[in-house]
Structures are given as structure tokens and as C-alpha cells.
């Protein structure tokens, strides 16, 4: 069966759509589940990193002799200890980020590392490493970094389409859109021009990065780590260490949150280098402070929007210029911001221009729908403000301009069936929309979009001799995906969910699997699981046909059993999966199904969020009073975990909107590298997060599944801003909307 076959139109699901218990549940509620930091090895050393205290400095010399002489120290590594290998630019950046070469480019940039017999010895050794720095001027703010006279991080990193005369920190330019924006603006009854700013935020996973590396003298290496993609870790580390990919086996631990932040490496190559040099296993665990200073927050942004609207709410033109700083290396997600900014709308005239900018901050990593939330904050705020000025209902305005099947999106693609309109109509009919508001309260809505994708995926499905099933997949389970895979396999095979166990393979046990990102797992791994199950079913039908002495074509698989079918099949009792499994050795050997595929055809996804806030006019404090998420899931395989994705994304967005921010001092040093002052939402900050799952099937998946993990963080920044603006009676255009900022806006009117 072709993988991109149209959806089967299957509606009579038996397992999919139910709320079964997850297979790793008991391990996780009893403390047995093994996460990144929970692994040990005999003879293990502790690895620790020395980090730059400067935002920008040339590393003149590093003298590690005193550290090396300390009793209990087994190895010290600097950049000089990494092999000289040819790396592509992106991988070189990863290496340089893991261990600085000529320059330290941000506060917290790794400059050396030690492996020692204990944490205390390692800490002592770090203090004995003498680094001579020549400090250089630094730049933190995105708009400052863009200036022609800003301190320069790198020379020669601008790509070919950056116009002459731009500052050296401007490394790429993107432009999307169609039509004639200027002409469109002329047709508008009202034109709004605004600048919006958002601060860098961190994914804030509760589990710090951790790994355990062991490099043998035979050149074989093993690595245990918490990651969103063990194959990515293997490929990156193998390149950096000059190992062949088959020599490095990477096992993904249980993962304590990622949200995009664990789609790259930070300490893993360092642990390998330390292990290689010391000849001992080396475990490294980041502190929270290291996580905030030296892993990958998202970009900060500065966005100009121009939007034209007719008196009756038709958007005549939309323009956005987006400036994202993505830290010390090229690669901010500004292209996705530029592509997604106007994606929910059917616009004749639309243009976005995106600038990728480097600054003296940690290299950004993906964060849930990377680049889209900031763009949506700007555009959805502008739409809201214009609607308000024209006295129009903000949901009606969005409905009037909503993208539908056949709409040519601002990023160029013509949409197939999509769910935006359904989310808007459902929101409009929901009791939340008409519920009365109290004093100092306001209501806001916003829409959001994310692309979703598929990618390289392998699944092996083994039928065990006792008639149960193992699904082997290669994507770390970050939020219950093993349950979803078991459910889809059970659905396809017609066996109870409890008879299927899904496990995550190490890199030596399956072919390449792309990282758990892009909301791809339930879609792509699900697709491969279904295909693997179908392959196993075909094999089982073949075995039954052998037993019955009839043609394979005369056997069908229904309700968990092979059955004769058609006029010439004859009468035979059905053979269940267990019946066939029991005689597998007699009929040709073990039975397994495989699927190895580069899955394409992920469906885009849309959401509308609605939020009520209450603003204390004396303090500027914002309270979230009520929150409802409306999102298209295609088909919710496990509705609990779909709701969980909606709720988690919404709350991360609330944090981004209200209190989370990277705060830098004049010296370019991060001032809040801890959960005390990097303020993620706590339980008492929030109400229940209501969810409405819509199911507009994705034609590219046999069950209609769409990715759901990322879209939910796209609308909340704007939804909360629109709500706070309504409650406070003043338009908020800068995040986070911290109490002092809200109060100041109120006072300034």
C-alpha cells in the first residue's frame, strides 16, 4: 500500500480515540523510570564544564596544568582536544557552541571541562583552570545587534541575499508573500502600524541535560542521554568526534521534557571527549543555572506590522518585518515566523520580511512551533486592535478573513481541507464567548498556525510466539507517544491494547529516525506503525493461507484474525493472531512487519484560543481567569494526551506572555539563571485550561491524524495580550506583560 494513500475514511475505531492507561505510567508514578541523570556505570567519573563569565571575549590562553595535577582529576579538555575534522557549517556551529574556540560568545559559553572522581573534586579543578580573556564589546538587544556599528560576533557569515550595507550581525534575510501591499493599504478604511517586542524565553523542561559517555580503546562508544533524538545525537557527535556512525551507539533515556530544547547537543560531545581522554565512563549533568545560561532559549524579537482593513473588517493588506536574534550563531527561526505570521488568513496582498540576527546570547534552539508565537503575537494583536477601533467583533473579523480550503497562504501554498474556520465557529458558539466579565476583566482571542511535518521513520513490529506484539520505534516518548503507537497497532491488528508493548530503540537497533520534533511523532511514527502492522497482517494472512491450503488472496484480516474470504476460499475456522503466532516456526519462521519511510504529507494545524484576564489597576498584576483552547487534531488518537498538549502549550504561552524573560545586565551577564527569577507559571497562577478538540481529518494519514504538539503555543501570547489590553484599557505591545510594564501602560494611558 502506498504510504501517501488517501485516508481510509475509517470511522469505527475500537482503540483509537479511547483513553487507555499509558504503558510507562507505573514506572513514572513509582520513581522507577530512568531519566538522563539516573544512569551509572562502574568506574564512572563526574564531568563538569568551565564557562565564560564574559558576554564576549577572546580566549587568549588556557592553562589547565594545576587542574590536571589535582588528585582525582582524570582529564581536562578544551577545544584543542577535539579532533580536526571537516564539518559542515551548521555542525561546526554546534561544536563551537559546545566548546568555545577562539572566542567566548556569551555568558556561560563552555571554555573547558574536567572529568574527576567526584563532584567536589571536579568543582575544585574548575577553579584551578586559568583562562586569560581579552574582553570585547558585546550586544544583547536584537535591534541594537542589527545596527551597522554594533560589536561584531562573526565575520563572513552573511548569506548571499543579505543586502549590502547591513551590519555584520545580520546574517540572513527572508521574504514571503504575494500581491501588492501598498495598493492593498490604499483600499483600507483604516491602517494600523505598530512595533511589537518579545523577550527570549526558555523551554523550561524540568529535567536538566544529562548524559553518560563511554569511549573504548577500540574506538567503539556508547552514550546514554536525555534527548529528543538519539539519532541526531549520534550523527552530530560522530561527526564532531570523527567516529563512524555505526561505532557510536546512543540510547535515549526517558526524557523529562524538551519542547524543542533537546533537539541538539550541548554536553554530549564534551562527555565523549572527556571519556576518550580519561579512558573512563563520564557522566555529566547540567545544573539549572547551566541550562538557562548555556542551552538554547528561543529568539527574542522585534516586529513591525502594517495592516489595512475595510470598515466592515476585510483585511486589504498585511505586512510584517520581523527581526529575530537567535543568539551567537546564525539560525534564528525567523523564516518560520515570516512564513506563519499571516498563515491563518486569506489575503490578496501580503508580505513578510524576516531578518536573522546574531547577538551575544546562547545559541537558540527550537522551542515548540519555533518562530511562530512571536509573529502571531504581532499580527493577532494588530488584527484585534484594528477590529476594536472599527467597532467590529474580533471573532467575526477573523472568520471573515479566515483561510479555507483553496486559500493561497502567505507562504505560497494552497491549503487543502483545514480546520481554522471550524475552530473559530466553535469558539463563537462556546459559552465562554458570551459569559459575563467582572470588573477589571477583559477577554481576548487569537488564532495560531503550525506546519507540522513527517520525516525519516522506522518501525519494526514483532509478533511474539505467545501472540502478543512489540512495536519498536526510534523516537523518544516525550508525552505519551508509546501509548499512541500501541493503540494504533492494536487498532490495525484487531487485538486488545494491553497485548501491545511499544519500546524505544537505541541507534543500533533501527534505521534512521528524525528527531521528535515538528509535531511529527503521532503522525509519522503512527503512519509507520500502521504500515508495519499491515505488513505483519499480510504475512499472517499468508501463513493462514498455507495452513488452509488456499491462495493468499482468499484470506482477509478482520477483528484480529485471518479469515477465508471470497467464493473459492472454502470454510475454515478463523485463525487469530495468537493461533498464527503459535505456529510461526512451522510456517516459515518468526513474523514481523517493518516500515522504513521518509513520511511526507503532514497536515497543517490551526487553533483559536480564548482567555479572560483580570488586571489589578493598582499593581498591574494580571490574573488568568478563564482559558479555552479550540484546536484541530485531525484525529485524536488518545484524547487525554491531545488535551494535555493543548493545555501545556497554552500555559507555556501564558508564561511567555506574562512573566518569563531572559534578563541581562549592562555587562551582558544573564541575571536570572534559576527558576526563582525565570518565572514559569506555578499551579496557583492558573485556572483549569478548558479544551475543545476538533477533528478535521488529515487526508495524508490513514486515520486522519495531524500533529498537535506545537500549534497550541502559537495563539496564547496574542490571546493574553488582547485580553490584558481589553482589561487594562490600554494596548500592550511588548512582552512579557510584567506588572510594572502593565502598570506603566495604564498610568501612561
Amino acid at each position, binding site marked *: 500500500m502506498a504510504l501517501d494513500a488517501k485516508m481510509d475514511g475509517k470511522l469505527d475505531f475500537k482503540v483509537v480515540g479511547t*483513553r487507555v*492507561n*499509558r504503558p*510507562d*505510567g*507505573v514506572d*513514572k*508514578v*513509582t*520513581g*522507577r*523510570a*530512568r*531519566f538522563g*541523570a*539516573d544512569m551509572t556505570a562502574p568506574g564512572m567519573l563526574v564531568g563538569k564544564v568551565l564557562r565564560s563569565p564574559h558576554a564576549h571575549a577572546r580566549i587568549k590562553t588556557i592553562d589547565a596544568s594545576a587542574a590536571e595535577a589535582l588528585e582525582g582529576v582524570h582529564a581536562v579538555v578544551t577545544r584543542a582536544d577535539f579532533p580536526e575534522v571537516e564539518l559542515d557549517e551548521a555542525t561546526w556551529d554546534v561544536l563551537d557552541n559546545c566548546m568555545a574556540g577562539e572566542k567566548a560568545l556569551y555568558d556561560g559559553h563552555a571554555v573547558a571541562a574536567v572529568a574527576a572522581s567526584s563532584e*567536589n573534586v571536579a568543582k575544585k579543578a574548575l577553579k584551578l583552570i586559568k583562562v586569560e580573556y581579552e574582553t570585547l564589546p558585546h550586544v544583547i538587544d536584537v535591534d541594537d545587534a542589527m545596527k551597522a556599528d554594533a560589536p561584531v560576533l562573526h565575520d563572513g557569515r552573511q548569506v548571499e541575499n543579505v543586502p549590502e550595507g547591513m551590519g555584520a550581525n545580520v546574517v540572513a534575510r527572508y521574504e514571503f508573500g504575494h500581491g501588492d501591499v501598498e495598493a492593498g493599504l490604499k483600499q483600507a478604511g483604516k491602517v494600523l502600524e505598530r512595533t511589537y517586542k518579545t523577550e527570549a524565553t526558555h*523551554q*523550561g*523542561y*524540568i*529535567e*536538566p541535560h544529562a548524559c553518560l559517555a563511554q569511549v573504548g580503546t577500540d574506538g567503539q562508544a556508547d552514550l546514554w542521554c536525555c534527548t529528543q533524538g538519539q539519532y541526531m545525537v549520534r550523527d552530530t557527535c560522530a561527526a564532531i568526534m570523527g567516529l563512524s556512525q555505526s561505532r557510536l551507539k546512543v540510547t535515549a533515556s*526517558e*526524557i*523529562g*521534557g*524538551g*519542547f524543542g530544547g533537546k533537539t541538539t547537543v550541548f554536553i554530549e560531545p564534551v562527555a565523549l571527549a572527556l571519556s576518550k581522554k580519561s579512558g573512563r565512563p563520564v557522566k555529566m*549533568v547540567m*545544573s*539549572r543555572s547551566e541550562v538557562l545560561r548555556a542551552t538554547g532559549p528561543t529568539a527574542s524579537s522585534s516586529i513591525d506590522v502594517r495592516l489595512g482593513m475595510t470598515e466592515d473588517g476585510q483585511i486589504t493588506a498585511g505586512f510584517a518585518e520581523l527581526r529575530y536574534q537567535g543568539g551567537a550563531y546564525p539560525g534564528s527561526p525567523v523564516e518560520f515566523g515570516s512564513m506563519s505570521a499571516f498563515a491563518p488568513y486569506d489575503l490578496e496582498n501580503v508580505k513578510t520580511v524576516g531578518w536573522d540576527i546574531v547577538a551575544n546570547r546562547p545559541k537558540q534552539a527550537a522551542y515548540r512551533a519555533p518562530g511562530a508565537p512571536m509573529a502571531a503575537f504581532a499580527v493577532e494583536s494588530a488584527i484585534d486592535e484594528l477590529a476594536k477601533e472599527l467597532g467590529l467583533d474580533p471573532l467575526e473579523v477573523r472568520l471573515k478573513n479566515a483561510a479555507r480550503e483553496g486559500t493561497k497562504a502567505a507562504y505560497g501554498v494552497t491549503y487543502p481541507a483545514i480546520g481554522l474556520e471550524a475552530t473559530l465557529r466553535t469558539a463563537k458558539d462556546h459559552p465562554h464567548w458570551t459569559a459575563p466579565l467582572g470588573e477589571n476583566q477583559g477577554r481576548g482571542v487569537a488564532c495560531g498556525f503550525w506546519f507540522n511535518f513527517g520525516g525519516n521513520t522506522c518501525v519494526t513490529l514483532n509478533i511474539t510466539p505467545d501472540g502478543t506484539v512489540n512495536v519498536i520505534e526510534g523516537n523518544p516518548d*516525550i*508525552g*505519551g507517544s508509546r501509548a499512541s503507537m500501541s493503540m494504533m497497532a492494536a487498532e490495525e491488528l484487531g487485538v486488545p491494547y494491553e497485548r501491545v508493548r511499544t519500546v524505544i530503540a537505541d541507534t543500533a537497533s533501527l534505521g534512521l529516525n528524525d528527531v521528535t520534533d515538528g509535531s511529527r511523532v503521532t503522525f509519522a511514527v503512527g503512519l509507520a506503525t500502521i504500515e508495519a502492522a499491515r505488513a505483519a497482517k499480510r504475512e499472517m494472512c499468508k501463513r493462514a493461507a498455507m495452513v488452509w491450503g488456499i491462495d493468499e488472496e482468499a484470506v482477509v484480516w478482520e477483528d484480529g484474525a485471518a479469515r477465508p474470504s471470497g467464493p473459492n476460499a472454502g470454510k475454515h475456522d478463523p485463525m487469530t493472531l495468537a493461533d498464527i503466532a503459535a505456529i510461526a516456526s512451522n510456517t516459515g519462521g518468526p513474523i514481523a512487519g517493518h516500515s522504513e519511510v521518509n513520511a511526507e504529507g503532514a497536515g497543517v494545524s490551526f487553533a483559536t484560543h480564548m482567555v479572560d484576564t483580570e488586571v489589578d489597576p493598582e499593581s498591574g498584576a494580571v490574573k488568568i481567569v478563564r482559558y479555552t483552547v479550540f484546536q484541530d487534531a485531525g484525529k485524536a488518537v*488518545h484524547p*487525554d*494526551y491531545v*488535551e*494535555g498538549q493543548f*493545555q*501545556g502549550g*497554552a*500555559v*507555556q504561552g501564558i508564561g511567555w506572555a506574562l512573566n518569563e524573560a531572559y534578563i541581562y545586565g549592562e555587562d551582558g551577564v544573564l541575571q536570572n539563571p*534559576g*527558576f*526563582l527569577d525565570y518565572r*514559569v*507559571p*506555578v*499551579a*496557583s497562577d*492558573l485556572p*483549569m*485550561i478548558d479544551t475543545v478538540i476538533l477533528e478535521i481529518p488529515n487526508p495524508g494519514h490513514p486515520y486522519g491524524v495531524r500533529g498537535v504538539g506545537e500549534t497550541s503555543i502559537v495563539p496564547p501570547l496574542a490571546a493574553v495580550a488582547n485580553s490584558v489590553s481589553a482589561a487594562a484599557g490600554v494596548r500592550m505591545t511588548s512582552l512579557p506583560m510584567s506588572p510594572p510594564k502593565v502598570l506603566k501602560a495604564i498610568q501612561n494611558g
Partner: protein
Amino acid sequence: MSMIHVTTTINGVSQEYLCEPDETLLDVLRDRLGMTGSKEGCGTGDCGACSVTVDDRLVCSCLMLGAEAEGRKVETIEGMAEGETLHPLQRKFIEHAALQCGICTPGILVAAKSLLEHNPNPTEEEARYWLAGNLCRCTGYDKIIRAVMAAAEEMREAS
């Protein structure tokens, strides 16, 4: 720096260990006793992933020295289920999908158990404030609070 000999009770079982004077109870549990159910998310008492009870008092084990546990009664996530029988909170967390990645789950369960021991009939607001020191980044807390309330109800009915 000489090691300190400590005798304590962990999950009802007498336990002896040697630890460094500056070693936290969390490090003792994880690195010396192999009880890795308690997690370190911050090391500064801001995330609650290392929550245990000491003499029935909820604490962050990262903010207590191993040496301080001398003669005390320590309870960790590993002692929450009775053999194969899960505590009602553990069961409700699974049934309500109150965990996604699961790293905060042990700490939240220990804290929630302590809540229900202090207050068997908490309001949603009381539960939210009691658990404010336990960060969860995956769930938005919704399903966690629902699971805690459901477990509280079941435990009240059973008692």
C-alpha cells in the same frame, strides 16, 4: 573531610550510610542509596522535583544535608506504593493522564500525599497553592489538579 555515619529510617526501613558533610539528602538518596525516584530539577528549592517527607514534613531533599537525617523518618516516592498496590494518587495520576514526561511526577505525588494527610478535603485553590512549589512544564497543571482532587475524593470515601 571525613565522612559522617548516619542512621535513619527510609520508607519504614532502617538505613545506614556514610556521606560527606556537605552532601545533600537528595545526593545521598540518588548517588549512595540508588533511590533515583527523587529528581534534581534545580538544586535550589524552586522546582520541588526532589520532594520527600522528613518526620512527616514535606521538604526539598536538595535543601537538606544527608547528615541532618540522623534519627529521622524519611519517606520518598519509592515508598509510596505498597508492594504492587499503587497509592490512590498514583493510580489517579495514570488514569487522568496527569503526567506527560513524568520528571516532576514523583515530587508532585509526594507533595500531594502530604497535602491529603494535612487536609483530606482540599479545595482546588488549596491544592494549587500547596503544590505551587512543584513545577510542571508539560501539563499546565490541569490534569494534575484533577487527579489530586479525584484521589482525595476516593480516599475520603474509603475512610
